[in-house]
């Protein structure tokens, strides 16, 4: 458990979408989490688990259906549009696709400078200096900053996006699959950069990804989501050594290890992922769980922490 101050506290967040006709998609269904200052919290899960939706909801890019989001003690839900807009200086987002995260009509300089222009930070000269410095930090020469995004590779664009996210000195950044669209060797560059930023500038991350190997590399704590629910939350090492929830166990064992000698005991998952429009009753995982009991079919398990801060939502744990 981190002793650092709590930066963000999200309580019982729900985000429902109206589907076809009467259907309601419960993308995020009662999720709570805590993010400490300077911490990297990894959020993993497969498609339809709601992790991207949760990330956006925490920043109020999507309005939560229910729940409260406390940033430094202040509830973001109550803020007016204007107040929320000003809050955005402190919390930024990095998106998945580096190819569409940058306005193709703005130069690199203009894109990175945009937050400063919006919040009217500093004079024109100061803004330019700040941008130049930040772009240098992420690895760009001065002549490159006048170019357009399409002249750069995916990895370079993602670094521009990171520069833009950092320029207003936020306290935390939600990263939605920041390296998934990048090549393996480029991923390493971007991940190293993000690690440096975390260590040197104390920026906290909510690192959303489906790739557990990547998440393991950057996170302090990791939360696992399944169909809109959080099923497990623990410190990084603890989760990998001692996964308690059957889904986490299956997930961990499915990851192919880049080593032909290592044989992993696969925990097979039966059946297919249910549709988020029609999630199963009770514990949402019971349809694929080989340990499912009668209670699992009827009653949704509560999320409980043990003495070490390892939380899990399972009747059998």
């Amino acid at each position: 458990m981190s002793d650092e101050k709590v930066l963000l506290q999200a309580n019982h967040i729900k985000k429902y979408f109206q589907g076809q006709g009467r259907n309601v998609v419960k993308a995020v269904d009662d999720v709570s989490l805590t993010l400490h200052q300077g911490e990297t919290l990894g959020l993993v899960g497969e498609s339809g688990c709601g992790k991207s939706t949760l990330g956006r909801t925490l920043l109020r890019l999507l309005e939560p259906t229910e729940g409260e989001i406390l940033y430094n003690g202040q509830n973001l839900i109550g803020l007016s549009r204007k107040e929320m807009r000003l809050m955005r200086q402190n919390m930024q987002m990095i998106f998945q696709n580096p190819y569409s995260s940058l306005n193709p009509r703005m130069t690199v300089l203009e894109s990175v400078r945009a937050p400063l222009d919006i919040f009217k930070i500093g004079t024109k000269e100061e803004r330019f200096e700040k941008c130049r410095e930040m772009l240098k930090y992420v690895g760009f020469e001065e002549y490159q900053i006048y170019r357009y995004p399409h002249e750069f590779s995916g990895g370079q664009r993602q670094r521009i996006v990171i520069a833009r996210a950092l320029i207003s000195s936020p306290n935390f950044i939600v990263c939605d699959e920041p390296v998934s669209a990048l090549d393996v060797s480029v991923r390493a560059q971007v991940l190293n950069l993000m690690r440096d930023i975390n260590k040197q500038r104390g920026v906290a991350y909510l690192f959303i990804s489906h790739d557990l190997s990547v998440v393991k590399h950057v996170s302090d704590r990791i939360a696992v989501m399944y169909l809109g629910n959080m099923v497990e939350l623990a410190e990084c090492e603890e989760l990998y050594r001692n996964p308690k929830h059957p889904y986490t166990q299956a997930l961990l064992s499915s990851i192919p290890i880049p080593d032909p000698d290592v044989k992993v005991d696969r925990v097979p998952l039966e059946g297919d992922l249910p549709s988020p429009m029609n999630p199963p009753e009770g514990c949402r995982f019971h349809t694929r769980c080989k340990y499912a009991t009668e209670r699992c079919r009827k009653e949704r398990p509560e999320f409980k922490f043990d003495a070490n801060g390892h939380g899990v939502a399972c009747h059998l744990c």
Partner: protein
Amino acid sequence: MKTEKNNKTRNVFIKDAVGRFVRHKVAMVSLCILVFEILVIVFLPLIIKLDPYSSYPGQFGVAPGGQFIFGTDDVGRDVFARIIYGGRVSLSVGFISAIISACIGVPLGLLAGFYRGVIRGIIMRLVDIFMSFPALVIQLVLVMVLGASERTLTLVLGLLGWTSYTRLVYSKVLSVKEEIYVEAAKSTGATDFTQMVKYILPNSLAPVFVTFSFAVAGNILAESGLSFLGLGVQLPTPTWGNMIRDAQTVSTLMYRPWMWIPAGVVLVITVVCINFVGDGLRAALDPKIKI
């Protein structure tokens, strides 16, 4: 120092776009023809004496030759002079009315696409209303009510032609709004206005340029059509349309082709060239299309 750097950024993009346009051969040729045409129309009357209004006594329906490059019309006026002056009217009506339509239609499309909901409903219903009226009938009615003149015509064509811009911009904005960089702008705290003007609009303009060129061409034709019917610009002011009107009698049609063929030919050439230039513009302005 700073402004120098800013200029550099603009120039890179424009230089890139110009380069791409230049490589689009058809558009370049069309542009050259149009520029030549415009230069002639604007400057020739300043160099040589051209009189489209006076009748030259005794020179009725004279075939091309000598003093009259394109001959004279039934009333003895110099056809060539009328072509030149007629071009002024036709082109200015065409361009200005297209600009008016764009100034109305583009912002409406932007608002409808960005806000959706009630605003979208109102704007699109307006579009439906305007589009469901037969254009020609409305034009005729308005022209008759307000009186036929160059100004009226420009206004009428401008006020009726905005709907295609709105629809186009609306559908482009729908897709551009979903782009991640717009969401990213929102997450960095941009206001709605900034999102619309700085992020969405520049990326939605490409179809506008194409529509603009077609609109100019279309308006030139509309004006010509109305003038041909006698409901547009009134004689003695020449326009290409009312010059083609002379082709209504069989004898002129067959035996005095110089009275209407020049106007028709120059009209066709102009419209076709404008269309090609529009195509070239669209390709040049999209940084992702490879030419």
